[in-house]
């Protein structure tokens, strides 16, 4: 009963949020719509008693990935109106593809009920987190480790493509700063009255030439 109402609420909100993402005039609003969609999708997960996945969705997608989206959108300078200019031309094609997918889904859903979905975690597991962990580290360890490799690839790629040693940037080497001693950079002298100072490490070369 309550679950039905919550489901309807979450599902409606997801559709609204997804609609915002596609239709928003302002990309910032679009990303916030995406965040809204994620939050409600997390709600659906929790409704399905997959609390761990739901919270993970919020933590990873809302807490990190969408923030990065927002961040990039805020800091780059793109005329989004200009980007959208060609949209009308592609709209019919997009609509056809969307309708085709929708038709396929509807057909599929009505032709045969979704059936036979097993619960790989199994019934009677104490918490979904523990059960998920047990599965990920035993039966499905291979895809899990591969996901790690994919993430590593992405990380290596991001660094390789953006990192570049620049010589024109000042850098701070804290260890070097801390280890610096007075005698490395300072000479104490007691000049005679009326006499100048010549640093010990500086040898005059051209002064006496004449």
């Amino acid at each position, binding site marked *: 009963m309550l679950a039905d109402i919550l489901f309807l609420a979450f599902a409606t909100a997801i559709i609204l949020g997804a609609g915002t993402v596609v239709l928003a005039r302002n990309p910032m609003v679009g990303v916030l719509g995406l965040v809204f969609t994620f939050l409600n999708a997390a709600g659906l997960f929790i409704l399905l008693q997959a609390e761990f996945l739901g919270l993970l969705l919020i933590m990873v997608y809302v807490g990190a990935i969408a923030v990065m989206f927002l961040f990039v959108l805020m800091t780059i300078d793109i005329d989004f109106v200009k980007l959208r200019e060609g949209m009308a031309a592609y709209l019919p094609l997009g609509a056809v593809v969307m309708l085709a997918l929708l038709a396929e*889904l509807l057909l599929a859903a009505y*032709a*045969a009920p*979704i059936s*036979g979905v097993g619960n790989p975690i199994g019934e009677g597991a104490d918490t979904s987190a523990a059960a998920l962990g047990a599965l990920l580290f035993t039966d499905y360890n*291979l895809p899990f480790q591969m996901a790690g*490799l994919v993430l590593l690839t992405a990380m*290596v790629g991001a660094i390789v493509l953006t990192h570049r040693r620049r010589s024109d940037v000042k850098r701070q080497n804290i260890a070097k700063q801390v280890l610096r001693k007075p005698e490395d950079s300072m000479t104490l002298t007691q000049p005679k009255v009326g006499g100048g100072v010549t640093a010990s490490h500086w040898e005059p070369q051209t002064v006496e030439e004449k």
Partner: protein
Amino acid sequence: MTDLTLLFPTIFLAVWALVLLMYGAFGGSARTTAAFACFGLAMLLVPMLTKPAMGSAFVLGQGALLGFSPFTQLAQVLLLVLAIPVALLAEPFFEGRKAHRAEIYTLMLLSLCGMFILTAAQDFLPMYMGLELMSFPLYIMAAMLRDRAESSEAALKYFVLGGLASGLLLFGVGLVYAATGTTQFASLMVALGQGGMPWPLLSVGLALTVLAVLFKLSVVPFHMWTPDVYQGAPTPVTAFMAALPKLAAIVLLVRLLEGPLSGLQELWQPALAVLAAASMVVGSVVAIRQTDVKRLLAWSTIANVGFVLCGVVAASPQGHGGVLFYLAVYGLTMVGLFAVLIELENLQEPVTVHGLAGLARRRPWLATMLLMLLFSMAGVPPFAGFMAKLNVFAPLVAAGYTWLAVVGVMASVVAAFYSLWLVKTMYFDVPSAEVAVVAKPVQSAQQSPLMLVALAAVAVVLVLGVLPGLLSNLTLPAATALF
């Protein structure tokens, strides 16, 4: 606990990639990293050839996550054999452009690791992860020359379209899971084996899944990304993309079609036949109009994938054996061609069709190698390309798809036209004045790995052309083991 010795090559690749990454990060030069990478790959060949792994890893219920058959085994060996010369190509190219980074080799090895998983996947989960692990490094490597706009454009196009394809794949897998409650090939086979048409949910899911693989293969309706990506990516990366992922993807396709989908043969056979015909015709015809050689090779890749699909359509041991044979020969030819192209680029020769005019007089050695490789591509008899085409068309006729074989032969005539036209340009055309000025003066024969790779490719193409049995004696039993 699963027997991890089966997974040794895959794990070795991943670990070796990590070792190279650390080596590069802590000051190792790109040059030595290249040497280490090639050394590792060559070392890996030893256990793979001496102790072929058979059986299943990560057994779950009815099926397993990975399964190693002779077909998989041979495909992995071929991948490895092709990867070594490609890795050799990177140094001469990137070094001259001041973009040689140790990470290129890490990425190559990671991609290869993904391909190994892909060729052995017996479940949609490792299949998806393998596909991603194979593709991600490709996107990054395509952008390696990040100061060049074409390189970034190629990477972005590849990435966005690849992302779309994997989205469709996941959607398809989701539908398959919704319909059958399993992601395993084995259980799917049981579910499909009950006869009759599969219910709509399942068929949509399966179609989307196969479509994602076809996208990676750049079969015709999903080929639009190929020319831009091939042209824009750094040339060694293009060689990598042309030779390796195609092989991995087609092995997966064959294993999907002959495994869980074997019951639906009367459905996928005609569909694939149409796609194969379209690929062959479109690829060959459009290639004629190209002026950039890399772009031309991209279109010829599309055509060649069409030829390969002919072998898949035949759905017989001979056909699938022909597929492996074709892709091995094709991959090697491509590697050789790209080696010559890199050498030409390094010599500041224009790599356009018109720029090649009079090459035979300027650089007779390079022109000769290019000639032999192009002859092989065109399917001229003494070279391996001819045997490769024969090996896919003959089973096709045997399977009753004579019309497709006729289309294929016609398309290969068209393909032969542009190959031979290139040869004609090199040998009989007079170069325009600017080309003669731009190109560096003729140098004495160089001892660069490029020439080594090109020579090796020419040699293998010649040997396999005369003695095809050397390879087909391996591919045929491997493919027979599928049935």
